[in-house]
């Protein structure tokens, strides 16, 4: 394809690239700013000297959040919810998605309708809340894990993924005397890394970022780290020791910054590696369920 370099196309190229640079800046700058704050001294922050480079470089904020027991505990809670939640979720999703991907199975259509309907009509906040308390799950860690174990969207994604695996391998395995459990475990799952990675990433991100369910169902020792962050942002709870009343607000800012960086970094570090999977995943998921 030949393109002619006229003045208007050159101008167009410039506009396009400027637009992209603007996108990059607007995505990254908030984090750079927060990162700079987290490394700056309280005096520099209060004198409004921090822009995009840390002023009065120090690591006090990071040191202090890790000595703060509530933060440490909340971080640990979030790790537990994320790992356990993702495992339970993947387990249940795979168990359901595999039989649902077999369109020849009797009742398949009915089960699919059950799933799809739950995407468009839900119990709503109050009935869910009352159910969880009726089941005595309130104030237990299960309240964070079980009620959200299957996201119907992720389930459909997984079903579509399984459908895309050729049936022939399976037929051959059945002839070789493997049963369906064996096929799922030994043949389908090893072929499903992309699907598992996509759904796993979505699920892990959900559990990692969840705070609202912690707020309504849990007691403070069980709070996830996002709820901890929310509480220090809106001033419900205080961070660190009450060293000097004057310093408190500004120490607070660099500490907030440090908490933001420490809670966000794991996700930012992981998602680019899974990009090739989830981009495909979005496509598969967008195809009719």
């Amino acid at each position, binding site marked *: *394809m*030949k*393109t002619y370099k006229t003045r*208007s196309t050159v101008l*167009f*190229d410039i506009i*396009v690239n400027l*637009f*992209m640079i603007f*996108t*990059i800046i607007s*995505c*990254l700058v908030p*984090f750079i700013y927060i990162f700079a704050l987290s490394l700056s001294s309280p005096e520099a922050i*209060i004198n409004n000297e921090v*822009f995009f480079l840390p002023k009065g470089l120090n690591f006090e904020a990071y040191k202090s959040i890790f000595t703060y027991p509530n933060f440490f505990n909340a971080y640990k809670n979030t790790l537990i919810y994320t790992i356990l939640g993702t495992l339970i979720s993947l387990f*249940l*999703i795979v*168990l*359901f998605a*595999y039989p*649902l991907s077999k369109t020849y*199975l009797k009742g398949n259509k009915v*089960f699919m309708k059950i*799933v799809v309907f*739950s995407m*468009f009509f*839900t*119990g*709503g*906040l*109050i*009935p*869910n*809340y*009352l*159910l969880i*308390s*009726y089941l005595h799950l309130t104030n237990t860690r299960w309240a964070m894990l*079980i009620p959200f*174990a*299957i996201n119907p969207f992720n389930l459909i994604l997984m079903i579509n993924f399984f459908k895309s695996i050729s049936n022939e391998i399976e*037929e051959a395995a*059945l002839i070789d005397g493997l049963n369906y*459990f064996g096929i*799922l475990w030994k043949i389908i799952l090893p072929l499903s890394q992309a699907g598992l990675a996509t759904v796993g990433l979505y699920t892990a991100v959900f559990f990692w*970022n969840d705070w609202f369910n912690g707020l309504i169902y849990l007691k403070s020792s069980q709070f996830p780290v*996002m709820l901890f*962050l*929310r509480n220090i*942002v*809106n001033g419900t709870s205080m961070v660190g020791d009450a060293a000097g009343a004057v310093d408190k607000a500004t120490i607070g*800012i660099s500490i*907030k910054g440090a908490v*933001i960086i420490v809670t966000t970094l794991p*996700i*930012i570090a992981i*998602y680019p590696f899974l990009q090739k999977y989830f981009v495909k995943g979005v496509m598969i998921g*967008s195809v009719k*369920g």
Partner: protein
Amino acid sequence: MKKLKKANKHQYWQLYAMMVLPLLYFIIFKYVPMFGNILAFRRYRPGMGPFGTEWVGLRYFKLFFKDAAFWTAFKNTLILSLLNLIINFPIPIIFALFLNEVRNRYFKKFVQTISYMPRFISTVVVIAIVSELLSPSTGILNIIRGKMGLDAIYYMNEPDYFRTIYVLLDTWQYTGWTAIIYLASITSISPDMYEAATIDGANRIQQIFYVTIPTILPTIMVMLILNIGRLLSLGFEKILLLYTPTNSQVSDILDTLVYRTGLANQNYSYATAIGLFTGIIGIILVTSSNSLSKKLTGQSIY
């Protein structure tokens, strides 16, 4: 192959056995709460189970229809949703069209990766960052205002700024992500089309208007209809985090009203009635937009 399937019919029980646990999950955690919506028509008594004790008919619906707070929330939900649709529906399309015009493959990939990032960030972190950036004393925006000799504005508390902040945050978080769909549909356009357009003397800008946009129009239509179907489902958590008593006149939406009246004030039946009302409007929007989509584009979501 047919024969084989028959031969294995006696193994099908294994497939059904796999479904038992997940199906139980769906019944308990999806369908029991759906059924729990009957609480909207029944009086709740503490300790007497989640489904209420006696029928009261449409009592709670009549109550909230007379409640000014409900109508404010209803109005706020509609305004915010429409504003969000008008602004954040076209932006990802424009972004995808522009991204497709980036010549350098590595730069393109880099922009894409960066643009997905905000979607993975927790709403709590997003709000924490924004309230830092907009803080009246140390926020960068107000520092700049201060340098220009202007008074600091407490953006997060001002009702006038609430809608702008909400919509812009959605732009920030979801533009790159939503663009994936459009980009996929753009990359599926055959290069022959562009070649033909070039021979006809179309420059790159004309190609966008005469080749790219017409080809991805079906995708745009489906996405538009999907978005209309989801009109009432705003980012509840984000709004809850942005909510302050001073901006409540614009920030109180149906979902936050349910949260406040239900969980904070424990008017369970009343809140369930509002929730059910919202849910039913939602399902009407989804089904009607879906059948509209089927008629217009032949595509549907279920």
